[in-house]
């Protein structure tokens, strides 16, 4: 009870909870699940972009894309690290991912079909991620908040690069222009779904808000993203695939979202769910003997140095 009061005080004062601090079991569990899911999303999210590295149309773009995907691996590492401060192993979390018991962001279950998708992912998907994540930089759990500060910085860099890819296409040939519009058509709605179900169907949100893990409601964040993005679409000269989109009272109001699609993808029936998990699992299984070798070698080295010291 004393511990709970101390915890509540820290939360109320908007201070950070640190790994050594006591925390309620539910808080810990919620955080582990959220951070793991976030880490998994970084890792699975590498695939749709890695898909185009070998085919990038210029060496500069190849380098930028390669660096971006590599950053995502890095984000995965920070986040698994943050989760580990809560007393759970990375290997355990990855196992939960590989066996489908933990999820990752559904957006990565859509395929990347053209080069313009590299731009659309940067602009829309990273854009939505940033809107989601910026408030997490003030999350009540210290290690997560600090990881997010670093991640958000890199994400906004990625988002600008994505926009730049699209901007270049928008100034390019007719075929490039078509590619651009097509990518925006395909990624717009899934990006809006990234903010999760509407507020009235988002059961866990209230508790997360109370704990200072979540700071804004799904719909608020979604609206913020739309308001931010529509003017950028104008700069690109693309049409957003929503005939109901209109400006009203300081906000861009959007049409109804196809939540049935969202639910289907979430349940595993997206275009790439199976592919993404199988790819991940194969990389993990193919690498098992390598990890074992590294462990065996490290053990031998330890034994040697102990013999040396003795």
């Amino acid at each position: 009870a004393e511990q709970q009061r101390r915890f509540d005080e820290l939360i109320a004062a908007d201070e950070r909870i640190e790994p050594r601090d006591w925390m309620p079991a539910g808080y810990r569990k919620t955080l582990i699940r959220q951070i793991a899911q976030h880490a998994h999303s970084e890792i699975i999210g590498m695939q749709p972009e890695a898909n185009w590295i070998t085919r990038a149309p210029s060496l500069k773009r190849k380098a930028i894309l390669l660096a971006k995907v590599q950053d995502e691996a890095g984000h995965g590492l920070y986040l698994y690290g943050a989760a580990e401060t809560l007393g759970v192993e990375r290997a355990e979390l990855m196992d939960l991912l590989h066996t489908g018991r933990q999820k990752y962001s559904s957006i990565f279950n859509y395929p990347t079909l053209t080069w313009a998708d590299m731009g659309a992912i940067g602009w829309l998907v990273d854009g939505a991620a940033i809107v989601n994540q910026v408030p997490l930089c003030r999350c009540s759990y210290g290690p997560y908040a600090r990881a997010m500060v670093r991640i958000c910085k890199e994400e906004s860099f990625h988002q600008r690069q994505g926009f730049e890819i699209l901007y270049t296409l928008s100034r390019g040939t007719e075929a490039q222009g078509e590619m651009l519009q097509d990518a925006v058509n395909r990624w717009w709605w899934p990006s809006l779904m990234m903010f999760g179900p509407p507020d009235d169907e988002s059961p866990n949100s209230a508790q997360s808000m109370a704990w200072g893990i979540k700071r804004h409601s799904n719909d608020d964040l979604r609206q913020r993203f739309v308001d931010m993005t529509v003017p950028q679409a104008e700069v690109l000269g693309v049409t957003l695939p929503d005939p109901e989109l209109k400006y009203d009272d300081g906000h861009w109001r959007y049409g109804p979202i196809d939540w049935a699609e969202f639910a289907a993808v979430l349940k595993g029936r997206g275009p790439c769910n199976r592919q993404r998990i199988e790819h991940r699992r194969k990389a993990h299984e193919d690498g098992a003997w390598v990890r074992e070798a590294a462990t065996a070698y490290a053990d031998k080295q330890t034994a040697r140095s102990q013999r040396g010291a003795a």
Partner: protein
Amino acid sequence: RADLARYVTSLGDDALIHAQRLAEWIASAPELEEDVALGNIALDQLGQARLLLSYAGDVEGAGRNEDDLAFFRDERKFLNLQLVELTNGDFAVTIAKLLLVSSYQLELYRRLSSSTDEMLSAIAAKATKEVAYHRDHATQWTLRLGDGTEFSHQQMQTALERVWPYLEEMFDDSWIPATLLESGVAVPVSELRPAFTQYVTTVIRQATLTSPEVPSIPTGGRRGIHTEAMGFLLAEMQHLARSHPGATW
């Protein structure tokens, strides 16, 4: 000038094709740390390729930039060593390739750091630091795999045997224009061999492995003769760029 352009292109192609193969690992590596590490190495190699190919284009003076050289040359015009274009195989083969390539590049770039061509010497000086890290990374993994489990030992030994036939080509001077050697622009690669061999054999021995005794095969990357894997690599790499000639990305 044509000689110099050709020489620089060869080195640039080594880095470019090596980067392309390494990049195939991203999102497929044995652990996340290795996605990051192989990504770093690929980025370094790609960076070297861009500097070298840009410079080659400048020297050539026909208005070709790095992308023209990377995306609009045909297979027979690529001058990289065959070693770098070999398919990745398993992780051990990738490490074996990296060990040989980085050991070679380190000796080569070190020497080229004092090339009489200033641009080349500047590029080489920067690259030397990078490939020293690559060689170190390959060395660490050679030790871990060689002196890890019985299985990894066998894989690593097999991997060495797979890449070994492509070793000879690295140290063949015959393709380097005599004028470039005389003027101190280029380095006679045959002279790199002792240092290369000493380093590599030491690592191999320390990793409880044996240097393969397999004969080399006729290669010819420096004359634009490649393995059958190369055409598929280029098809993948160039398809999009070639589908939109003249476009800006």
